[in-house]
Protein backbone atom coordinates (compact mmCIF):
# COMPACT_ATOMS: atom_id res chain seq x y z
CA UNK A 1 0.00 0.00 0.00
CA UNK A 2 1.13 3.52 -0.77
CA UNK A 3 1.75 4.62 2.82
CA UNK A 4 4.57 2.09 3.05
CA UNK A 5 6.63 4.36 0.81
CA UNK A 6 7.25 8.09 0.99
CA UNK A 7 5.58 10.19 -1.70
CA UNK A 8 8.90 10.72 -3.47
CA UNK A 9 9.61 6.97 -3.74
CA UNK A 10 6.26 6.07 -5.27
CA UNK A 11 6.01 4.64 -8.74
CA UNK A 12 3.23 6.50 -10.54
CA UNK A 13 1.06 4.92 -13.22
CA UNK A 14 -0.97 6.29 -16.09
CA UNK A 15 -4.23 4.32 -15.76
CA UNK A 16 -4.73 4.46 -19.54
CA UNK A 17 -2.18 1.65 -19.86
CA UNK A 18 -4.33 -0.63 -17.68
CA UNK A 19 -7.44 0.43 -19.62
CA UNK A 20 -6.10 -0.50 -23.04
CA UNK A 21 -4.40 -3.76 -22.05
CA UNK A 22 -7.61 -4.90 -20.34
CA UNK A 23 -9.73 -3.94 -23.34
CA UNK A 24 -7.48 -5.83 -25.76
CA UNK A 25 -7.54 -8.88 -23.48
CA UNK A 26 -11.34 -8.84 -23.25
CA UNK A 27 -11.70 -8.29 -27.00
CA UNK A 28 -9.61 -11.40 -27.72
CA UNK A 29 -12.37 -13.63 -26.33
CA UNK A 30 -15.46 -11.45 -26.79
CA UNK A 31 -15.92 -10.37 -30.37
CA UNK A 32 -18.88 -8.17 -29.44
CA UNK A 33 -16.43 -5.63 -28.05
CA UNK A 34 -15.82 -2.57 -30.23
CA UNK A 35 -14.19 0.78 -29.53
CA UNK A 36 -15.79 4.05 -30.66
CA UNK A 37 -13.63 7.18 -30.72
CA UNK A 38 -13.55 10.84 -31.80
CA UNK A 39 -10.05 11.18 -33.34
CA UNK A 40 -8.93 10.08 -29.88
CA UNK A 41 -6.95 6.93 -30.67
CA UNK A 42 -3.75 8.44 -29.31
CA UNK A 43 -5.22 10.31 -26.36
CA UNK A 44 -7.08 7.12 -25.38
CA UNK A 45 -3.83 5.13 -25.85
CA UNK A 46 -5.82 2.80 -28.11
CA UNK A 47 -2.90 2.12 -30.47
CA UNK A 48 -2.58 -1.56 -29.46
CA UNK A 49 -6.34 -2.11 -29.93
CA UNK A 50 -6.24 -0.35 -33.31
CA UNK A 51 -3.41 -2.62 -34.44
CA UNK A 52 -4.96 -5.84 -33.19
CA UNK A 53 -8.59 -5.15 -34.21
CA UNK A 54 -8.55 -2.43 -36.88
CA UNK A 55 -12.03 -3.34 -38.10
CA UNK A 56 -13.48 -3.11 -34.58
CA UNK A 57 -12.36 0.49 -34.09
CA UNK A 58 -15.01 2.99 -35.18
CA UNK A 59 -13.47 6.45 -35.50
CA UNK A 60 -16.25 8.93 -36.28
CA UNK A 61 -13.83 11.86 -36.30
CA UNK A 62 -14.30 14.98 -34.20
CA UNK A 63 -18.00 14.43 -33.54
CA UNK A 64 -18.89 13.48 -29.96
CA UNK A 65 -22.68 13.48 -30.28
CA UNK A 66 -22.37 11.21 -33.28
CA UNK A 67 -19.89 9.06 -31.34
CA UNK A 68 -22.22 8.34 -28.42
CA UNK A 69 -25.21 7.87 -30.72
CA UNK A 70 -23.25 5.45 -32.91
CA UNK A 71 -22.23 3.64 -29.72
CA UNK A 72 -25.89 3.22 -28.76
CA UNK A 73 -26.65 1.91 -32.24
CA UNK A 74 -23.81 -0.57 -32.02
CA UNK A 75 -25.24 -1.75 -28.68
CA UNK A 76 -28.64 -2.10 -30.30
CA UNK A 77 -26.94 -4.23 -32.95
CA UNK A 78 -25.57 -6.62 -30.34
CA UNK A 79 -22.11 -5.13 -29.86
CA UNK A 80 -20.55 -4.05 -26.58
CA UNK A 81 -19.22 -0.58 -27.37
CA UNK A 82 -16.52 1.14 -25.33
CA UNK A 83 -16.94 4.79 -26.26
CA UNK A 84 -13.65 6.45 -25.42
CA UNK A 85 -12.87 10.16 -25.55
CA UNK A 86 -11.47 12.97 -23.44
CA UNK A 87 -13.91 13.11 -20.51
CA UNK A 88 -14.61 16.82 -21.06
CA UNK A 89 -15.96 16.35 -24.58
CA UNK A 90 -17.60 12.97 -23.95
CA UNK A 91 -19.72 14.41 -21.17
CA UNK A 92 -20.17 18.12 -21.84
CA UNK A 93 -20.64 17.80 -25.59
CA UNK A 94 -22.67 14.62 -25.75
CA UNK A 95 -24.65 14.87 -22.51
CA UNK A 96 -28.05 14.43 -24.13
CA UNK A 97 -26.82 11.34 -25.95
CA UNK A 98 -25.47 10.04 -22.63
CA UNK A 99 -28.78 10.76 -20.93
CA UNK A 100 -31.10 9.43 -23.64
CA UNK A 101 -29.21 7.08 -25.97
CA UNK A 102 -27.21 5.37 -23.22
CA UNK A 103 -29.06 5.74 -19.90
CA UNK A 104 -32.77 6.19 -20.71
CA UNK A 105 -32.39 3.41 -23.28
CA UNK A 106 -30.55 1.22 -20.75
CA UNK A 107 -28.02 0.11 -23.32
CA UNK A 108 -25.10 -2.06 -22.40
CA UNK A 109 -22.44 0.47 -23.34
CA UNK A 110 -19.38 1.80 -21.58
CA UNK A 111 -18.50 5.50 -21.68
CA UNK A 112 -14.81 5.86 -20.98
CA UNK A 113 -13.81 9.38 -19.89
CA UNK A 114 -10.11 9.79 -20.56
CA UNK A 115 -7.82 12.32 -18.85
CA UNK A 116 -10.58 13.50 -16.51
CA UNK A 117 -10.51 16.06 -13.75
CA UNK A 118 -7.82 18.65 -14.34
CA UNK A 119 -5.36 16.31 -16.07
CA UNK A 120 -5.14 18.69 -19.02
CA UNK A 121 -3.85 21.41 -16.67
CA UNK A 122 -2.70 24.40 -18.72
CA UNK A 123 -5.11 23.63 -21.55
CA UNK A 124 -7.71 25.20 -19.30
CA UNK A 125 -11.35 24.85 -18.24
CA UNK A 126 -12.44 23.94 -21.79
CA UNK A 127 -10.42 20.73 -21.40
CA UNK A 128 -11.00 20.07 -17.69
CA UNK A 129 -13.69 17.59 -16.80
CA UNK A 130 -14.60 18.51 -13.24
CA UNK A 131 -18.34 18.76 -13.79
CA UNK A 132 -18.72 15.14 -14.95
CA UNK A 133 -19.32 13.55 -11.54
CA UNK A 134 -21.93 16.13 -10.54
CA UNK A 135 -23.74 15.83 -13.85
CA UNK A 136 -23.59 12.08 -14.29
CA UNK A 137 -24.69 11.13 -10.80
CA UNK A 138 -28.06 12.72 -11.57
CA UNK A 139 -28.73 10.31 -14.45
CA UNK A 140 -30.91 7.33 -13.51
CA UNK A 141 -29.47 3.89 -14.14
CA UNK A 142 -25.96 5.05 -14.99
CA UNK A 143 -23.14 3.51 -12.95
CA UNK A 144 -20.41 6.11 -12.36
CA UNK A 145 -16.98 4.64 -11.58
CA UNK A 146 -13.86 6.55 -10.56
CA UNK A 147 -11.01 4.06 -10.17
CA UNK A 148 -8.12 4.97 -7.88
CA UNK A 149 -5.30 3.04 -9.54
CA UNK A 150 -4.44 0.72 -12.45
CA UNK A 151 -5.73 -2.45 -10.72
CA UNK A 152 -9.07 -0.87 -9.97
CA UNK A 153 -9.23 0.58 -13.51
CA UNK A 154 -8.72 -2.88 -15.02
CA UNK A 155 -11.32 -4.43 -12.72
CA UNK A 156 -13.84 -1.69 -13.50
CA UNK A 157 -13.38 -2.25 -17.25
CA UNK A 158 -13.95 -6.00 -16.78
CA UNK A 159 -17.00 -5.41 -14.63
CA UNK A 160 -18.48 -2.99 -17.17
CA UNK A 161 -17.89 -5.41 -20.04
CA UNK A 162 -20.08 -7.92 -18.21
CA UNK A 163 -22.69 -5.53 -16.79
CA UNK A 164 -25.83 -5.28 -18.91
CA UNK A 165 -26.36 -1.53 -18.54
CA UNK A 166 -24.80 1.89 -19.12
CA UNK A 167 -21.56 2.67 -17.30
CA UNK A 168 -19.25 5.68 -17.13
CA UNK A 169 -15.63 5.12 -16.09
CA UNK A 170 -13.04 7.81 -15.49
CA UNK A 171 -9.55 6.72 -16.63
CA UNK A 172 -6.90 8.84 -14.92
CA UNK A 173 -3.97 10.24 -16.85
CA UNK A 174 -2.42 12.03 -13.90
CA UNK A 175 0.05 9.59 -12.33
CA UNK A 176 -1.25 7.55 -9.39
CA UNK A 177 0.52 4.92 -7.25
CA UNK A 178 -0.96 1.48 -6.55
CA UNK A 179 -3.47 1.95 -3.73
CA UNK A 180 -5.80 -1.06 -3.61
CA UNK A 181 -4.51 -4.06 -1.60
CA UNK A 182 -3.63 -7.47 -3.01
CA UNK A 183 -6.74 -9.58 -3.56
CA UNK A 184 -9.05 -6.57 -3.83
CA UNK A 185 -12.11 -7.00 -6.00
CA UNK A 186 -14.05 -4.04 -7.35
CA UNK A 187 -17.80 -4.03 -6.87
CA UNK A 188 -20.11 -1.05 -7.45
CA UNK A 189 -21.38 0.52 -4.25
CA UNK A 190 -18.66 -1.06 -2.12
CA UNK A 191 -16.17 1.28 -0.47
CA UNK A 192 -12.72 0.19 0.56
CA UNK A 193 -11.49 1.09 4.04
CA UNK A 194 -7.82 1.81 3.45
CA UNK A 195 -7.15 3.02 6.97
CA UNK A 196 -9.26 2.71 10.09
CA UNK A 197 -9.78 5.67 12.36
CA UNK A 198 -12.16 6.99 14.99
CA UNK A 199 -11.99 10.81 15.02
CA UNK A 200 -12.82 11.77 11.45
CA UNK A 201 -13.50 10.07 8.10
CA UNK A 202 -11.96 11.14 4.82
CA UNK A 203 -13.94 9.83 1.83
CA UNK A 204 -11.88 10.08 -1.35
CA UNK A 205 -12.24 8.89 -4.91
CA UNK A 206 -9.91 8.33 -7.87
CA UNK A 207 -6.70 10.33 -7.96
CA UNK A 208 -7.39 11.84 -4.54
CA UNK A 209 -7.28 8.56 -2.58
CA UNK A 210 -3.50 8.66 -2.21
CA UNK A 211 -3.72 12.27 -1.05
CA UNK A 212 -6.27 11.25 1.58
CA UNK A 213 -3.87 8.58 2.86
CA UNK A 214 -1.09 11.16 3.08
CA UNK A 215 -3.46 13.52 4.92
CA UNK A 216 -4.21 10.77 7.44
CA UNK A 217 -0.47 10.56 8.17
CA UNK A 218 -0.32 14.31 8.76
CA UNK A 219 -3.36 14.09 11.04
CA UNK A 220 -1.89 11.13 12.96
CA UNK A 221 1.12 13.29 13.75
CA UNK A 222 -1.34 15.73 15.39
CA UNK A 223 -2.98 12.92 17.36
CA UNK A 224 -6.06 12.79 15.10
CA UNK A 225 -7.18 9.34 14.05
CA UNK A 226 -8.56 9.50 10.50
CA UNK A 227 -10.46 6.76 8.72
CA UNK A 228 -9.85 6.71 4.95
CA UNK A 229 -12.58 5.35 2.69
CA UNK A 230 -11.94 4.93 -1.01
CA UNK A 231 -15.26 5.30 -2.87
CA UNK A 232 -14.86 3.78 -6.33
CA UNK A 233 -18.43 4.49 -7.44
CA UNK A 234 -20.14 7.85 -7.10
CA UNK A 235 -23.32 6.08 -8.18
CA UNK A 236 -24.20 3.85 -6.41
CA UNK A 237 -22.63 5.00 -3.13
CA UNK A 238 -21.69 2.62 -0.33
CA UNK A 239 -24.43 3.87 1.97
CA UNK A 240 -23.66 1.47 4.81
CA UNK A 241 -20.01 2.49 5.01
CA UNK A 242 -20.91 6.18 4.94
CA UNK A 243 -23.63 5.86 7.59
CA UNK A 244 -21.23 3.89 9.80
CA UNK A 245 -18.61 6.61 9.36
CA UNK A 246 -21.17 9.28 10.28
CA UNK A 247 -22.12 7.35 13.44
CA UNK A 248 -18.64 6.31 14.50
CA UNK A 249 -16.49 9.36 13.72
CA UNK A 250 -16.88 13.07 14.45
CA UNK A 251 -17.06 14.39 10.92
CA UNK A 252 -16.81 13.61 7.22
CA UNK A 253 -14.48 15.17 4.64
CA UNK A 254 -15.11 14.35 0.97
CA UNK A 255 -12.29 14.70 -1.56
CA UNK A 256 -12.47 14.66 -5.36
CA UNK A 257 -10.65 16.02 -8.40
CA UNK A 258 -13.95 17.52 -9.44
CA UNK A 259 -16.63 20.00 -8.45
CA UNK A 260 -17.60 19.27 -4.83
CA UNK A 261 -21.16 18.66 -6.01
CA UNK A 262 -19.99 15.26 -7.31
CA UNK A 263 -18.95 12.90 -4.52
CA UNK A 264 -19.42 15.63 -1.92
CA UNK A 265 -22.96 16.44 -2.98
CA UNK A 266 -23.89 12.76 -3.17
CA UNK A 267 -22.57 12.01 0.33
CA UNK A 268 -24.23 15.13 1.76
CA UNK A 269 -27.61 14.17 0.27
CA UNK A 270 -27.35 10.75 1.87
CA UNK A 271 -26.23 11.90 5.30
CA UNK A 272 -28.54 14.87 5.65
CA UNK A 273 -31.55 12.58 5.31
CA UNK A 274 -30.25 9.51 7.18
CA UNK A 275 -27.65 10.60 9.73
CA UNK A 276 -26.64 14.28 9.65
CA UNK A 277 -22.95 14.78 10.39
CA UNK A 278 -20.58 17.75 10.18
CA UNK A 279 -19.01 17.80 6.71
CA UNK A 280 -16.32 19.59 4.72
CA UNK A 281 -15.84 19.37 0.95
CA UNK A 282 -12.46 19.27 -0.77
CA UNK A 283 -12.52 19.84 -4.53
CA UNK A 284 -13.37 22.71 -6.84
CA UNK A 285 -16.31 24.93 -5.95
CA UNK A 286 -18.16 27.20 -8.35
CA UNK A 287 -15.22 28.53 -10.31
CA UNK A 288 -13.33 28.02 -13.57
CA UNK A 289 -9.70 27.13 -12.96
CA UNK A 290 -6.99 29.68 -13.71
CA UNK A 291 -4.12 28.76 -16.03
CA UNK A 292 -1.75 26.24 -14.42
CA UNK A 293 -0.39 22.71 -14.57
CA UNK A 294 -2.40 19.91 -13.00
CA UNK A 295 -0.12 19.64 -9.98
CA UNK A 296 -0.21 23.42 -9.50
CA UNK A 297 -4.01 23.39 -9.76
CA UNK A 298 -4.41 20.51 -7.29
CA UNK A 299 -2.44 22.53 -4.72
CA UNK A 300 -4.22 25.75 -5.69
CA UNK A 301 -7.59 24.19 -4.86
CA UNK A 302 -6.29 22.45 -1.73
CA UNK A 303 -6.80 18.99 -3.19
CA UNK A 304 -3.60 18.00 -1.42
CA UNK A 305 -2.57 16.19 1.75
CA UNK A 306 -2.27 19.46 3.64
CA UNK A 307 -5.54 20.84 2.23
CA UNK A 308 -7.39 17.68 3.24
CA UNK A 309 -5.79 17.70 6.70
CA UNK A 310 -6.85 21.33 7.16
CA UNK A 311 -10.43 20.45 6.21
CA UNK A 312 -10.38 17.52 8.67
CA UNK A 313 -9.15 19.69 11.55
CA UNK A 314 -11.77 22.25 10.62
CA UNK A 315 -14.66 19.79 10.66
CA UNK A 316 -13.54 18.68 14.14
CA UNK A 317 -13.20 22.28 15.28
CA UNK A 318 -9.48 21.83 16.03
Amino acid at each position, binding site marked *: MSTATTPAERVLHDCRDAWVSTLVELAETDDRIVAVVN*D*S*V*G*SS*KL*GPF*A*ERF*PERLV*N*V*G*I*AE*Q*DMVGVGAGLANGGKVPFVSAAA*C*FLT*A*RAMEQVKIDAAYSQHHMVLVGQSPGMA*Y*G*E*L*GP*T*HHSIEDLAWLRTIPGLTVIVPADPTETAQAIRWAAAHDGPVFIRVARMGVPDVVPEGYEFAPGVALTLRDGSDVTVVATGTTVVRALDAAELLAADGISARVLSMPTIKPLDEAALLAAARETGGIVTVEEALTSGLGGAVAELLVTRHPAPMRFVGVSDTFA*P*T*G*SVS*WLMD*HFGISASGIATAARDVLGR
Partner: protein
Amino acid sequence: MTVEEDLVPQVDPQAVPGDTLTVLGRVPSGASRDEAVAHLAEAARLVRRRDIMMVRAAGLGHIGGEFSVIDILVTLYLHAMNMSPDQLGDPDRDRFILSKGHAAAALYTTLAMAGFLPPEQLSTFMQPLSQLNGHPARTKIAAVEASTGPLGHGLPIAVGTAFAGKLDGSSRRTFVVVGDGELQEGSNWEALMTAGNHGLDHLCVIVDRNRLQQGARVADTNDLEPLADKLAAFGMEVVEVNGHDHGALLDVFAGVPAPSGKPTAVIAHTDKGHPISFMSDNVAWHHKVPSAEQVAQALSELE
Protein backbone atom coordinates in the same frame (compact mmCIF):
# COMPACT_ATOMS: atom_id res chain seq x y z
CA MET B 1 -2.44 3.81 -38.57
CA THR B 2 -0.63 6.88 -37.30
CA VAL B 3 -1.17 7.92 -33.75
CA GLU B 4 -0.24 11.20 -32.17
CA GLU B 5 2.46 11.51 -29.55
CA ASP B 6 1.22 11.85 -26.03
CA LEU B 7 0.61 15.32 -24.72
CA VAL B 8 3.04 15.63 -21.84
CA PRO B 9 4.85 18.82 -20.82
CA GLN B 10 8.55 18.54 -21.59
CA VAL B 11 9.84 21.78 -20.18
CA ASP B 12 13.55 22.44 -20.49
CA PRO B 13 13.99 26.11 -19.54
CA GLN B 14 17.76 25.87 -20.11
CA ALA B 15 17.19 25.25 -23.76
CA VAL B 16 14.77 28.10 -24.36
CA PRO B 17 16.13 30.57 -26.90
CA GLY B 18 15.70 34.33 -26.45
CA ASP B 19 12.18 35.65 -26.16
CA THR B 20 11.97 38.84 -28.13
CA LEU B 21 9.46 39.78 -30.79
CA THR B 22 10.00 42.74 -33.10
CA VAL B 23 6.57 44.32 -33.44
CA LEU B 24 5.97 45.38 -37.04
CA GLY B 25 2.35 46.46 -36.60
CA ARG B 26 -0.15 46.88 -39.43
CA VAL B 27 0.79 47.25 -43.05
CA PRO B 28 1.11 51.06 -43.44
CA SER B 29 -1.83 52.63 -45.23
CA GLY B 30 -0.91 53.56 -48.78
CA ALA B 31 1.49 50.63 -49.13
CA SER B 32 1.51 49.00 -52.56
CA ARG B 33 0.38 45.39 -52.89
CA ASP B 34 4.02 44.26 -53.18
CA GLU B 35 4.97 46.25 -50.10
CA ALA B 36 2.03 44.78 -48.20
CA VAL B 37 3.01 41.25 -49.19
CA ALA B 38 6.62 41.83 -48.11
CA HIS B 39 5.46 43.23 -44.76
CA LEU B 40 3.16 40.24 -44.16
CA ALA B 41 5.85 37.73 -45.13
CA GLU B 42 8.32 39.26 -42.67
CA ALA B 43 5.69 39.42 -39.92
CA ALA B 44 4.75 35.76 -40.48
CA ARG B 45 8.41 34.75 -40.29
CA LEU B 46 8.86 36.55 -36.96
CA VAL B 47 5.59 35.20 -35.58
CA ARG B 48 6.64 31.63 -36.41
CA ARG B 49 10.02 32.13 -34.73
CA ARG B 50 8.44 33.48 -31.55
CA ASP B 51 5.73 30.82 -31.58
CA ILE B 52 8.09 27.86 -31.67
CA MET B 53 10.11 29.34 -28.80
CA MET B 54 6.92 29.74 -26.75
CA VAL B 55 5.90 26.15 -27.35
CA ARG B 56 9.37 24.98 -26.44
CA ALA B 57 9.40 27.04 -23.24
CA ALA B 58 5.92 25.90 -22.17
CA GLY B 59 6.54 22.28 -23.13
CA LEU B 60 3.04 22.35 -24.62
CA GLY B 61 1.34 23.68 -27.72
CA HIS B 62 0.02 22.67 -31.12
CA ILE B 63 2.84 23.70 -33.41
CA GLY B 64 1.53 21.95 -36.55
CA GLY B 65 -1.84 23.71 -36.63
CA GLU B 66 -0.21 26.96 -35.52
CA PHE B 67 2.21 27.00 -38.44
CA SER B 68 -0.56 26.16 -40.89
CA VAL B 69 -2.73 29.12 -39.81
CA ILE B 70 -0.15 31.87 -39.17
CA ASP B 71 -0.20 33.32 -42.70
CA ILE B 72 -3.99 33.63 -42.49
CA LEU B 73 -3.86 35.28 -39.06
CA VAL B 74 -1.15 37.72 -40.03
CA THR B 75 -2.93 38.73 -43.24
CA LEU B 76 -6.17 39.34 -41.34
CA TYR B 77 -4.75 41.26 -38.38
CA LEU B 78 -2.07 43.28 -40.17
CA HIS B 79 -3.95 44.04 -43.35
CA ALA B 80 -7.44 42.74 -44.13
CA MET B 81 -9.36 43.52 -40.97
CA ASN B 82 -10.61 46.91 -39.95
CA MET B 83 -9.47 46.39 -36.37
CA SER B 84 -6.76 48.06 -34.34
CA PRO B 85 -5.88 48.22 -30.63
CA ASP B 86 -7.27 51.74 -30.13
CA GLN B 87 -10.54 50.79 -31.81
CA LEU B 88 -11.68 47.75 -29.79
CA GLY B 89 -14.77 49.57 -28.53
CA ASP B 90 -15.97 50.49 -32.02
CA PRO B 91 -19.12 48.45 -32.75
CA ASP B 92 -18.44 48.62 -36.50
CA ARG B 93 -14.91 47.22 -36.38
CA ASP B 94 -14.33 43.78 -37.88
CA ARG B 95 -14.41 40.67 -35.69
CA PHE B 96 -12.18 37.59 -35.68
CA ILE B 97 -12.77 34.21 -34.05
CA LEU B 98 -10.19 31.44 -33.93
CA SER B 99 -12.46 28.44 -33.68
CA LYS B 100 -9.52 26.00 -33.75
CA GLY B 101 -8.50 27.36 -30.37
CA HIS B 102 -5.67 24.85 -29.94
CA ALA B 103 -3.60 27.17 -32.17
CA ALA B 104 -3.69 29.72 -29.32
CA ALA B 105 0.06 30.42 -29.38
CA ALA B 106 -0.21 31.54 -33.02
CA LEU B 107 -3.09 33.86 -32.12
CA TYR B 108 -1.28 35.35 -29.11
CA THR B 109 1.88 35.93 -31.11
CA THR B 110 -0.08 37.54 -33.95
CA LEU B 111 -1.99 39.73 -31.46
CA ALA B 112 1.37 40.89 -30.07
CA MET B 113 2.66 41.52 -33.61
CA ALA B 114 -0.44 43.66 -34.27
CA GLY B 115 -0.12 45.60 -31.00
CA PHE B 116 -3.02 44.01 -29.09
CA LEU B 117 -0.74 42.41 -26.46
CA PRO B 118 2.58 43.55 -25.01
CA PRO B 119 5.23 41.22 -26.49
CA GLU B 120 6.72 40.59 -23.01
CA GLN B 121 3.45 38.91 -22.03
CA LEU B 122 4.15 36.09 -24.49
CA SER B 123 6.68 34.56 -22.11
CA THR B 124 3.87 33.89 -19.59
CA PHE B 125 2.24 31.44 -22.03
CA MET B 126 0.71 28.56 -19.99
CA GLN B 127 2.38 29.69 -16.75
CA PRO B 128 0.34 29.68 -13.51
CA LEU B 129 -2.29 32.46 -13.47
CA SER B 130 -1.31 33.62 -16.99
CA GLN B 131 -3.92 35.26 -19.21
CA LEU B 132 -2.33 33.27 -22.03
CA ASN B 133 -4.06 29.99 -21.35
CA GLY B 134 -3.55 26.93 -23.55
CA HIS B 135 -6.80 27.94 -25.29
CA PRO B 136 -7.91 31.55 -25.82
CA ALA B 137 -10.47 32.95 -23.39
CA ARG B 138 -12.46 36.11 -24.00
CA THR B 139 -12.48 36.81 -20.26
CA LYS B 140 -8.67 36.91 -20.25
CA ILE B 141 -7.76 38.95 -23.35
CA ALA B 142 -9.69 41.98 -24.59
CA ALA B 143 -9.11 41.27 -28.28
CA VAL B 144 -10.40 37.68 -28.06
CA GLU B 145 -14.07 37.52 -29.09
CA ALA B 146 -14.86 33.92 -28.21
CA SER B 147 -13.49 31.35 -25.77
CA THR B 148 -12.57 28.36 -27.87
CA GLY B 149 -10.85 24.99 -27.46
CA PRO B 150 -13.69 22.51 -27.78
CA LEU B 151 -13.99 22.27 -31.56
CA GLY B 152 -17.19 23.32 -33.28
CA HIS B 153 -18.03 26.42 -31.21
CA GLY B 154 -16.49 29.31 -33.15
CA LEU B 155 -18.57 29.16 -36.32
CA PRO B 156 -21.98 29.29 -34.58
CA ILE B 157 -20.72 32.24 -32.51
CA ALA B 158 -19.47 33.93 -35.69
CA VAL B 159 -22.90 33.45 -37.26
CA GLY B 160 -24.46 35.18 -34.26
CA THR B 161 -21.92 37.99 -34.46
CA ALA B 162 -22.65 38.47 -38.17
CA PHE B 163 -26.39 38.27 -37.49
CA ALA B 164 -26.12 41.08 -34.92
CA GLY B 165 -24.18 43.16 -37.45
CA LYS B 166 -26.91 42.60 -40.01
CA LEU B 167 -29.64 43.59 -37.54
CA ASP B 168 -27.72 46.79 -36.80
CA GLY B 169 -27.02 47.53 -40.46
CA SER B 170 -23.33 47.57 -39.56
CA SER B 171 -20.55 47.39 -42.14
CA ARG B 172 -18.50 45.13 -39.87
CA ARG B 173 -17.33 41.79 -41.15
CA THR B 174 -16.86 38.64 -39.11
CA PHE B 175 -13.99 36.30 -39.94
CA VAL B 176 -13.74 32.83 -38.40
CA VAL B 177 -11.08 30.15 -38.90
CA VAL B 178 -12.08 26.51 -38.52
CA GLY B 179 -9.87 23.45 -38.84
CA ASP B 180 -10.72 20.90 -41.51
CA GLY B 181 -10.95 18.09 -38.96
CA GLU B 182 -13.10 20.43 -36.92
CA LEU B 183 -15.67 20.41 -39.74
CA GLN B 184 -16.58 16.88 -38.67
CA GLU B 185 -18.52 18.51 -35.82
CA GLY B 186 -22.18 18.81 -36.82
CA SER B 187 -22.57 22.21 -35.12
CA ASN B 188 -20.61 23.76 -38.00
CA TRP B 189 -23.11 22.53 -40.56
CA GLU B 190 -26.05 23.70 -38.47
CA ALA B 191 -24.39 27.13 -38.35
CA LEU B 192 -23.63 27.15 -42.09
CA MET B 193 -27.27 26.36 -42.78
CA THR B 194 -28.31 29.36 -40.69
CA ALA B 195 -25.74 31.62 -42.34
CA GLY B 196 -26.79 30.58 -45.84
CA ASN B 197 -30.51 30.84 -45.20
CA HIS B 198 -30.15 34.29 -43.66
CA GLY B 199 -27.79 35.59 -46.35
CA LEU B 200 -25.15 36.69 -43.84
CA ASP B 201 -22.91 38.18 -46.52
CA HIS B 202 -20.58 39.89 -44.01
CA LEU B 203 -19.52 36.49 -42.67
CA CYS B 204 -16.30 34.90 -43.92
CA VAL B 205 -15.57 31.31 -42.90
CA ILE B 206 -11.97 30.27 -43.50
CA VAL B 207 -11.19 26.56 -43.52
CA ASP B 208 -7.57 25.79 -42.63
CA ARG B 209 -7.45 22.89 -45.09
CA ASN B 210 -4.23 21.18 -43.98
CA ARG B 211 -5.69 17.69 -44.58
CA LEU B 212 -4.57 16.46 -41.15
CA GLN B 213 -6.31 16.21 -37.82
CA GLN B 214 -5.04 15.02 -34.43
CA GLY B 215 -4.27 11.38 -35.06
CA ALA B 216 -4.41 10.88 -38.82
CA ARG B 217 -5.32 12.35 -42.20
CA VAL B 218 -8.82 13.78 -42.41
CA ALA B 219 -9.48 11.60 -45.46
CA ASP B 220 -8.56 8.47 -43.49
CA THR B 221 -10.67 9.44 -40.47
CA ASN B 222 -14.02 10.75 -41.75
CA ASP B 223 -13.57 12.43 -45.12
CA LEU B 224 -14.95 15.89 -45.97
CA GLU B 225 -14.86 15.75 -49.73
CA PRO B 226 -16.39 17.11 -51.87
CA LEU B 227 -15.92 20.03 -49.48
CA ALA B 228 -16.37 22.90 -51.94
CA ASP B 229 -19.60 21.38 -53.23
CA LYS B 230 -20.90 20.86 -49.70
CA LEU B 231 -20.18 24.46 -48.72
CA ALA B 232 -21.81 25.72 -51.92
CA ALA B 233 -24.84 23.54 -51.25
CA PHE B 234 -25.19 25.21 -47.85
CA GLY B 235 -25.38 28.60 -49.57
CA MET B 236 -21.78 29.76 -49.40
CA GLU B 237 -19.80 31.70 -51.99
CA VAL B 238 -16.82 29.35 -52.15
CA VAL B 239 -13.27 30.50 -52.90
CA GLU B 240 -10.15 28.31 -52.90
CA VAL B 241 -6.77 29.83 -52.18
CA ASN B 242 -3.21 28.92 -51.25
CA GLY B 243 -3.32 29.64 -47.51
CA HIS B 244 0.37 30.49 -47.36
CA ASP B 245 0.25 33.05 -50.20
CA HIS B 246 -0.21 36.46 -48.54
CA GLY B 247 -1.04 38.21 -51.79
CA ALA B 248 -3.70 35.69 -52.73
CA LEU B 249 -5.15 35.81 -49.22
CA LEU B 250 -5.41 39.60 -49.11
CA ASP B 251 -7.16 39.61 -52.49
CA VAL B 252 -9.69 37.05 -51.23
CA PHE B 253 -10.39 38.93 -48.00
CA ALA B 254 -10.84 42.17 -49.94
CA GLY B 255 -13.71 40.43 -51.76
CA VAL B 256 -15.82 40.10 -48.57
CA PRO B 257 -18.78 40.74 -48.69
CA ALA B 258 -19.27 38.92 -52.01
CA PRO B 259 -21.49 40.64 -54.60
CA SER B 260 -23.70 37.51 -54.67
CA GLY B 261 -25.01 38.38 -51.18
CA LYS B 262 -23.90 35.00 -49.85
CA PRO B 263 -21.56 34.35 -46.93
CA THR B 264 -18.01 33.63 -48.12
CA ALA B 265 -16.31 30.30 -47.43
CA VAL B 266 -12.58 30.31 -48.11
CA ILE B 267 -10.93 26.93 -48.46
CA ALA B 268 -7.34 27.84 -47.59
CA HIS B 269 -5.03 25.08 -48.76
CA THR B 270 -2.26 24.83 -46.19
CA ASP B 271 0.28 22.40 -44.79
CA LYS B 272 0.45 21.57 -41.12
CA GLY B 273 3.88 22.64 -39.81
CA HIS B 274 4.55 24.86 -42.85
CA PRO B 275 7.31 25.59 -43.91
CA ILE B 276 9.55 23.54 -41.62
CA SER B 277 11.10 20.62 -43.50
CA PHE B 278 10.63 18.00 -40.81
CA MET B 279 7.16 19.15 -39.69
CA SER B 280 5.38 19.99 -42.90
CA ASP B 281 2.39 17.73 -43.66
CA ASN B 282 3.47 15.34 -40.88
CA VAL B 283 0.72 14.21 -38.49
CA ALA B 284 3.23 13.59 -35.72
CA TRP B 285 3.51 17.37 -35.25
CA HIS B 286 -0.08 18.00 -34.13
CA HIS B 287 1.00 18.69 -30.55
CA LYS B 288 4.51 17.36 -30.37
CA VAL B 289 6.98 19.65 -28.58
CA PRO B 290 10.22 20.19 -30.50
CA SER B 291 13.55 19.34 -28.89
CA ALA B 292 16.19 22.06 -28.47
CA GLU B 293 17.91 20.76 -31.64
CA GLN B 294 14.64 20.79 -33.56
CA VAL B 295 13.97 24.38 -32.46
CA ALA B 296 17.44 25.37 -33.66
CA GLN B 297 16.85 23.63 -36.97
CA ALA B 298 13.43 25.29 -37.41
CA LEU B 299 14.86 28.71 -36.56
CA SER B 300 17.59 28.24 -39.14
CA GLU B 301 14.90 27.47 -41.72
CA LEU B 302 13.14 30.68 -40.67
CA GLU B 303 16.19 32.94 -41.15
